[in-house]
């Protein structure tokens, strides 16, 4: 009797487990899914509604192409990603409207990039981003990019080096550190900038370029927002100026002009850091931005020999001046837009919480009037594998430092 009971218990337990543990709900079979790698949103022609372009990975093509170079462009178009379009009254609506024509359920957890058309960016970006922040399936680590023209063009552009264009964009975002001339902003960062009082949000700009007859994409600068509306842009040089201030320059090349013959010298940034210190003298606001930069001599086009104490000093002075110029250019532009992209307001709030409460409502007018005090601690460390240019002694100019214009 007891054994029978145990048996019944076991069997019913197994039945329950079969029902529950296998996950009947929310199950997603891979061959029913269309994995979205990137998404672009534009204004629809009909007005008021959104047009969505999603790049969906085709698993079969990825495997075929990745198997070996010999495969090349096998099977139809040979593209590893399909571009699907849809429209809707809201972004979510557009996402669900894919089901009318897409045989697979779109799966968003691997979405890498969100490209937003310029039209929307100018009118206000938050209505579009809300769902991406709110929905648990989407990840906040996706990059936010603003298209110079239409987002759909960006997603339709191809890359020769990557099979899936969205992944190519993702990878260019990750290699941005080689130049540090692109601001990389993911969904979380963007949300944080939007939420933070006084701060103007930024996002990378992306455009299409022609390369050997094909259309591909290129990161072209930084979009500057006021609230959630795009009001201007920084070019690449200004972007690095901005990145110096917020301490996000990781690598990159600083080109300085050789003092003796006017040719260029490239300094390779190794590391940098920054510190923003707000100061209040009565009603006057001063922002002390201390940037420290360390670099190596990466290459020179001139004949100078910098391997002397004055030579290195001269280089680091030139570097400091170059960094200062970049920062000033970014600052002037931001001030003209009265857009606090540097988060000076946040720094102020942290140091002077009480005063900030009074300043905050008028921050837009106060910010451009702020005095910027830039201090650059510049160091040139190493010279690579040669200590002097590979030129005969007679051609070398060893008196570099002395010919420096006195500062």
């Amino acid at each position, binding site marked *: 009797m007891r054994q029978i009971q145990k048996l019944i218990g076991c069997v019913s337990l197994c039945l329950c487990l079969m029902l529950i543990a296998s996950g009947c709900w*929310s199950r997603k079979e891979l061959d029913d899914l269309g994995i979205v790698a990137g998404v672009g949103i534009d204004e629809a022609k009909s007005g008021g509604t959104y047009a969505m372009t999603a790049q969906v990975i085709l698993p079969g093509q990825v495997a075929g192409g990745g198997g070996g170079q010999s495969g090349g462009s096998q099977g139809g178009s040979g593209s590893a990603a399909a571009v699907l379009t849809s429209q809707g009254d809201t972004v979510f609506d557009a996402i669900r409207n894919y089901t009318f024509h897409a045989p697979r359920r779109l799966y968003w957890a691997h979405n890498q990039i969100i490209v937003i058309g310029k039209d929307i960016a100018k009118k206000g970006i938050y209505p579009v981003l809300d769902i991406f922040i709110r929905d648990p399936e989407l990840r906040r680590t996706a990059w936010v990019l603003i298209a110079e023209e239409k987002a759909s063009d960006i997603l339709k552009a191809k890359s020769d080096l990557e099979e899936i264009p969205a992944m190519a964009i993702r990878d260019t975002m990750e290699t941005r550190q080689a130049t540090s001339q692109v601001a990389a902003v993911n969904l979380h960062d963007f949300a944080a900038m939007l939420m933070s009082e006084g701060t103007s949000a930024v996002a990378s700009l992306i455009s299409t370029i022609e390369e050997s007859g094909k259309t591909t994409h290129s990161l072209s600068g930084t979009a500057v927002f006021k609230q959630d509306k795009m009001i201007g842009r920084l070019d690449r040089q200004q972007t690095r100026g901005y990145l110096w201030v917020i301490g996000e320059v990781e690598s990159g090349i600083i080109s300085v002009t050789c003092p003796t013959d006017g040719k260029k010298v490239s300094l390779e940034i190794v590391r940098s850091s920054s510190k923003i210190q707000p100061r209040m003298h009565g009603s006057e606001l001063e922002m002390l931005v201390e940037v420290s930069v360390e670099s190596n001599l990466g290459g020179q086009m001139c004949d100078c020999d910098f391997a002397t104490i004055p030579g290195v000093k001269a280089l680091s002075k030139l570097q400091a001046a170059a960094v200062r110029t970049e920062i000033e250019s970014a600052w002037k532009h931001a001030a003209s837009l009265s857009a606090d992209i540097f988060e000076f307001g946040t720094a102020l709030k942290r140091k002077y919480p009480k005063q900030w409460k009074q300043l905050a409502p008028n921050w837009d007018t106060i910010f451009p009037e702020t005095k910027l005090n830039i201090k650059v601690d510049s160091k040139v460390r190493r010279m690579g594998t040669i200590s002097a240019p590979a030129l005969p002694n007679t051609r070398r100019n060893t008196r570099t430092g002395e010919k420096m214009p006195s500062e």
Partner: protein
Amino acid sequence: MRLEQGKISSSQLVFIVLGVILSSVQVIPPSGRVGRIAWLTNLIGVIEACGFALIFIALAKRFQGDTFVDIASKVWGTYLGKAVSGAYLLFLFHIGSLVIDDFATFLNTVFMPETPSVVLALGMAAVAAYTVRHGIEVIARCSQILVPMLVVNTALAFLLALPQFELANLQPLFDAPLSELALGAHRATAFPYLESLAFLMVFPFVSRQKQVGKSVIGSLIIGGVFLSFLSVRNYAISGIVNTINVYPSVMAIALIEVGEIVTRIEALVALNMLSVAFLAICVFMYTNVLGTAQLLELNSYRPLVIPTAVLMALVSTIHFENYIEAFVFANQTSLLYHPIFEIIVPGLTLLVAAARGKRNTGRDALVSKEES
């Protein structure tokens, strides 16, 4: 016949209390609206909670070896005592099923949006029921495994999150109106700190009675420091977005990306939540069935476990109609509702016991109970 033969050590008590305190992280962030200064309110809350915990400790000392049901009947008399302990048991039942609901809601929101919450609730209750049937010792041993595992997981996630850390997010450190600070602290006291002590029931089973007080205060402090640490971590990672995140830990850890390989480690957080939710459900279910069995003078609490578990799971689905109601309950109602059973009832009981000179007369209550 005694209902529970098991004994737990005082270190196991620490782990259980910790488990219950930490189970609150799955619900609304322990100090809701206070945001950036959550770490501070959590710490102040601990101090307040330690003060009130003295009531529990005094009761446990006065009535060594008695559960709350015994104490109530001794202090309040047979009928009133039964009413008081009945209300207390309802509270435990309510909190237990709330934990189930919180957990199901968490899974529904973040990981399994389509699964009916009753299925999640029943699954969780079933596992808890299985554990509770095996008695306090098994729960204690579970907590001994799960809580350290949680600490390891958290440490791991913390290390991976270090690159994203920005402590400047927390500045200015103390900028908050005093009233908000006090309210936040009291909120943390009512829930989760004192909630974890609402199970006076288990104290008699601690093998070394003298250490109960020490373990309780110790675990409150550890729990408080841990919660503070979590709020610092989450705010340092997520910054201002943390104030609108429904599940701050998950969202903070979800931002971790080490290369392209170590991503999506918020599963670790989910694992933590699963383990502490399980512990909390076990504890409340156990104390509830044990008390009910005592109240009804049964010989064993085991026959009550499955019906109670089913009932808890079912009730868990009808707590709230929407998330906002849950938020209001956790942030506002709990300020008044929880203290009734966490402070007023035990406090009054202690007062009346002192006034009437009641205490446990038997040298060893568990033995005297066996004789009766």
